[in-house]
């Protein structure tokens, strides 16, 4: 089968969907070069006399009858040093390089390598010649950025004896680094490998996640935590703050690697990320967050087929770093745009639509995306553990959570951060609803938190109860007015407001409040709960409620999120003493009179 000979021609054009006649060796998923301008496309359907491809670029100006060349290879990612600190489009063209070569606008006939061919890396071999190797074995390392030590692994499906390996020195991406001999065949390998984006990278064993992904957002870390290796959906109508939550995770979450996929979203948001990230310092490593980040930007006005591919491109890169033993967070904004891309292509293929016009295979595709998350032992020696946490934003039309994408997504995720438009309208951010959200990871994470300090599990339950109680009481207030409630219930309302306004609310742009360390989150909530239980005691002694509401400590609790730095959590002890002093003083004053 000669690759050059597999050529056909364009038969029909409907937006990104191209009908091709004359190909002989086409397989589903083969990459094709369409027309004289060699636009990239992928074969998605084969009938008896033609093949259908979706084109990753704009098709205006393409003629019927132009040639189509089949590369006979699937769409693959280049995986190797140079991925971090980089920004790609949905099919892994390097955007800075495109700009350098072709200017500020993305047109047709533009190509750019994913990994820099000229840059050289210092390679450190870790195994000796003559070693027997299997897929995933780490044979050497490259210091990719200040934070990340890139492991060079034997590609999947390669077994044999290491016959040569280079000495420690500088090498470029295309240099031969090692050779492996199996039987009579000897193969050469460089610093990078390729992997088709739609195939799952194999691993040895999956394990249940027990460690939280610390996000620095109190409402998440304390109320609706996610585990490293977990899956979360973040649904919300427009303007509810999905993107700010995703950006916050990218900035502060304690993952080793962040893969951020901007899928069908705004160009200016990507510009924001690109301008901010190089200047932001990761609180865990004190190095710029960009050094651990891979960005994939396929904005809403870029071709829809590439948008569909972008999520899988991101996953493939995430799996590659997971295989090195890193904790990776894949942030996808937004999975709805991805599903809509599926729908658009499906509509052009005139497939029978299922619910909401989406194709019947929507749930299969969503599953193939979310199931690639998890905590695993990757293949190869030495044994290691790596994880992929997937956080998928969902943009339900009209904020309606019963629509197909949100509904189907719910089946595959174990944590659900429902964003509430009403909270967003009063600028209560993050607008994660405490009534509609849930996390099934909390019980598995309790052990981790208990090592940190007392009472995480109990505090979670206590705040949930206060919030739920307060929501119930609000209904009664509507009928009789706040003044006519029993004093204990008025206290619940007051404390619930306090929890909402000084604890759950968090200013993503305030230098102190934007990241709340686990210690600070825990100490602050325990202080509020202690204030509640002591106040309950006070009002039971028939001391009026306004006395506890007006205590000086209330103002200090209110300010704590903005004024106490993460490194100064010891200050909470002072607040605790002050609380005790003021309460005791209050009781003494009343009992003596």
């Amino acid at each position, binding site marked *: 089968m000669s690759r050059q000979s597999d050529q056909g021609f364009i038969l*029909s*054009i409907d*937006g990104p969907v191209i009908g091709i006649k004359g190909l002989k060796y086409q397989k589903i998923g083969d990459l094709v070069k369409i027309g004289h301008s060699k636009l990239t496309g992928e074969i998605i359907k084969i009938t008896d006399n033609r093949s259908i491809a979706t084109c990753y670029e*704009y*098709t*205006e*100006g*393409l*003629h*019927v*009858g*132009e040639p189509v060349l089949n590369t006979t290879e699937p769409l693959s990612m280049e995986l190797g040093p140079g991925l971090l600190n980089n*920004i790609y489009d949905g099919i892994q063209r390097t*955007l800075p390089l*495109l*700009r350098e070569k072709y200017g*500020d*606008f*993305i047109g047709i006939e533009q190509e750019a390598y994913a990994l820099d061919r000229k840059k050289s890396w210092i390679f450190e071999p870790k195994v000796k010649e003559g070693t027997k190797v299997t897929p995933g074995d780490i044979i050497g390392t490259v210091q990719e950025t200040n934070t990340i030590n890139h492991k060079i692994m034997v590609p999947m499906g390669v077994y044999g004896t290491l016959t040569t390996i280079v000495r420690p020195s500088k090498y470029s991406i295309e240099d031969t680094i090692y050779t492996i001999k199996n039987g009579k065949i000897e193969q050469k390998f460089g610093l990078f490998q390729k992997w088709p984006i739609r195939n799952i990278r194999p691993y040895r064993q999956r394990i249940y996640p027990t460690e939280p992904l610390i996000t620095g957002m109190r409402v998440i870390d304390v109320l609706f935590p996610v585990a490293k290796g977990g899956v979360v959906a973040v649904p919300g109508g*427009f*303007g509810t703050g999905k993107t700010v939550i995703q950006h916050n995770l990218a900035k502060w979450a304690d993952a080793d690697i962040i893969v951020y996929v*901007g899928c*069908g979203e*705004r*160009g*200016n948001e*990507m*510009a924001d990320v*690109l*301008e901010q990230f190089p200047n932001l310092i990761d609180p865990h490593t004190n190095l710029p967050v960009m050094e651990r980040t891979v960005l994939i930007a396929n*904005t*809403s*006005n*870029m071709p*829809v087929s590439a948008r569909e591919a972008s999520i899988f491109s991101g996953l493939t890169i995430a799996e590659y770093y997971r295989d090195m033993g890193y904790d990776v967070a894949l942030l996808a904004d937004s999975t709805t745009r991805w599903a*809509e891309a599926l*729908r*658009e292509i499906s*509509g052009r293929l005139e497939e029978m639509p299922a619910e909401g*016009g989406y194709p019947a295979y929507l749930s299969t595709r969503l599953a193939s995306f979310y199931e690639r998350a998890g905590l695993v032992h990757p293949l190869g020696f030495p044994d290691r553990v790596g994880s992929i946490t997937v956080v998928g934003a969902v943009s339900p*039309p*009209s904020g*309606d959570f019963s629509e197909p994408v949100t509904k189907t997504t719910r089946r595959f995720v174990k944590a659900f951060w429902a964003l509430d438009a009403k909270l967003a*309208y*009063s*600028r209560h951010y993050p607008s994660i609803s405490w009534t509609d959200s849930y996390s099934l990871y909390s019980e598995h994470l309790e052990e981790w938190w208990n090592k940190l300090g007392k009472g995480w599990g109990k505090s979670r339950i206590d705040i949930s109860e206060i919030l739920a109680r307060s929501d119930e009481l609000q209904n009664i*207030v509507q*009928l*009789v*007015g*706040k*003044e006519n409630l029993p004093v204990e219930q008025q206290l619940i309302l007051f404390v619930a407001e306090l929890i909402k*306004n*000084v604890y759950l*609310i968090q200013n993503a*742009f305030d230098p102190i409040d934007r990241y709340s360390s686990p210690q600070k989150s825990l100490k602050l909530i325990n202080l509020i709960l202690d204030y509640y239980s002591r106040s309950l005691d006070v009002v039971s002694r028939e001391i009026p409620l306004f006395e506890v509401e007006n205590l000086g400590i209330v*103002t200090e609790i*209110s*300010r704590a999120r*903005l004024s106490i730095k993460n490194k100064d959590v010891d200050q909470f002890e002072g607040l605790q003493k002050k609380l005790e002093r003021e309460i005791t003083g209050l009781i003494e004053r009343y009992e003596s009179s």
Partner: protein
Amino acid sequence: MKITYSNIQGIEGPLVFLRHQHNVMNGEIVHIIDPNGIARTGRVLEISENVTVIEVFQGTAGLDTDRTQLTFSDEVFQISISRDMLGRTFDGQGRPKILKNADSFPELLPEVVRPICGTPINPYSRSYPTDVIHTGISVIDGLTTLVRGQKLPIFTGQGLSHNKLAAQIVKQAKVREENFVVVFVGIGILQDDAMYFEQRFKESGNWQNVISFLNIASDPTIERILIPRIALTVAEYFAFDLDMHVLVIMTDITNYCEALRELSSAKGEIPSRKGFPGYMYSDLASLYERAGKIKGREGSITQIPIITMPNDDITHPIPDLTGFITEGQIVLSRELYKRNVYPPIDILSSLSRLMKEGVGEGKTREDHSEIASQLYSLYAQSLEIKELESIIGEESLTSLDKRILNFGKSFEQYFMNQKFDEERDVITTLDLAWDLVSTVPKRNILRISPEILDKYYIEDARIKEKLWGR
């Protein structure tokens, strides 16, 4: 090579179906001569195995199958652009519009010729918009700040004052810029509305900086799909080639989407929500995403699309999809309009996503984002209390509730309400906000950091009284 056909296979709605015998180009322009010898223009929309689908810009009325002639031009739709376009009006195909009683204009000498579909800006080339456009309107400057390079739609309903608001923004925003161009795009609008804008632009004395593209309600529907693309191609030339700041006002996107639906159903596509095509999100994005700023270039494109929400329904697909693409929205409220509040902006559902980088120390004032957040919070509370009041009566409210209720009333009266010719600078707006916030006890102000609160909160009771005496 130009090829002419005269054997149309079928005609449906705005579409012509032709059995082609040569290699047709996707998007190719087709010149059509109807049986009366009058020229029309069309464009190739889809090519299947033997049949080409052509959309006819002027509509298909009067076309037949055997006498109509179609010539393939071997070109995609392009527009000639020139600096002489300033101060002039163009039709739905970008040709100079001949107005009655107008001075005769010289023909345009094109400086460049560009295809109208444009190409996406490389996300890496974008520079994040941070320069505030001061509109002189308190609600916008204070709470939903407009930034150069932003796309901020106005969601409105039939009969609300969106045209007035858009005209006021144009009038007051121009002052600070010399190289400022307004591109006005009327999509299926009423002749009256077109005249209203023309008059306002002339009154404000910047007619020479306005380029108008008009497709009025009686003009062909298909042109509604072209006209915003033509206008944005022109805007891109002025912004990114000539380094000017371009403000594009597009009204009404609802008409655009309806034209899209008409075309889609004529093609026999599978409809999505409310009959609109499944690709409407991507299609709208191809318009809105043309706003922005580019690294190393001076100019910018700011878009204010106007969307009439059918039945005032913000969850209708058109406003809904728009909201997911644009950087916020300004929502007009019928209830405020009825109470004679101008501009009737429903601040709780309005939002500017680019505000955070545009405001603050060195840009507007250090307290801006915090006071804005506090205003939202208090106003939201005041509306809740108002609802409560209507059930349980004013007597049962706590004293704090009463204070917040009063805050809400004066906020609407003094802050939101503004005259058409009243221009407030941003400092006046922020000071006004502090006057209002200071009527609420200091310990109930939870959204503002202690230092800012101490610096700006007005403790003196007399000042508060002064405010009520305004």
